[in-house]
């Protein structure tokens, strides 16, 4: 009798331990994607263009092909456009492939810009592809991409 009771107790403890362990693993699985994973690059492009087709050309994304320090990477985006009231660049966005988040920077311009030329310094978590997309006033989208090799990564180093 006693032996059976003890056995049952032991069983219960084991089950409880197992269940709580399972719950802990479950929580980890839920938290991790929320922390580290965003949408993939094609979805991010689609989100920016609202599903409109993207043509190659007119945009020039300038970035060093080999980057030593991913913490500050200079980039320049130039878009060929007359920048007149009738034909100008509305927005320029830069997206990445493998950082924790796809968006890098989105600039809003207009005919008052004179020239669609922007530069910034960004972070790159690892070697990856970068895409620059320009939205024109006529509703068309143009893009350029660049592959970058990064030797020292930024932003996701774990302790």
């Amino acid at each position, binding site marked *: 009798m006693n032996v059976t009771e003890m056995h049952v107790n032991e069983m219960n403890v084991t089950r409880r331990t197992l269940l709580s362990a399972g719950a802990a693993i479950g929580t980890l699985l839920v938290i991790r994607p929320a922390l580290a994973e965003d949408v993939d690059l094609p979805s991010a492009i689609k989100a920016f263009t609202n599903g409109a087709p993207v043509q190659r050309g007119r945009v020039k994304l300038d970035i060093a092909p080999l980057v030593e320090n991913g913490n500050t990477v200079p980039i320049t985006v130039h878009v060929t456009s007359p920048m007149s009231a009738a034909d100008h660049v509305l927005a320029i966005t830069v997206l990445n492939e493998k950082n924790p*988040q796809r968006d*890098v920077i989105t*600039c809003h311009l207009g005919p008052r*810009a*004179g020239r669609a030329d922007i530069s*910034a310094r960004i972070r790159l978590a690892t070697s990856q592809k970068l895409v620059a997309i320009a939205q024109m006033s006529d509703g068309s989208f143009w893009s350029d991409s660049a592959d970058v090799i990064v030797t020292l990564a930024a932003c996701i180093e774990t*302790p």
Partner: protein
Amino acid sequence: MARALITMPKTAKRGEIVEIRTLIAHPMETGYRAGDDGQIVPRNLIRRFSCRYEGELVFSADLFPAVAANPYLTFCTLATTSGTLQFTWDGDCGFSQTENVVLTVT
């Protein structure tokens, strides 16, 4: 007040394209990085930058964690009239800073 640097010509001819370079001291903490104690350092970003030329918005940018610390940004604007260019950075933890630069157009 964070230290901000704005480099642009003081004078320009009407219709000339003026290049503006801006730099502001800010950690741009991503919220993905662990500190020395192993805890995630809370996100602290500049989210938005804007440039107004005599009150009219001529350029703005949305900044994400992938923008490097001490955000550096260059862009161009068309010199139309003499006036003030107002640069504003807005971000997390109530961060907001405004700088004014006068441009004389001849």
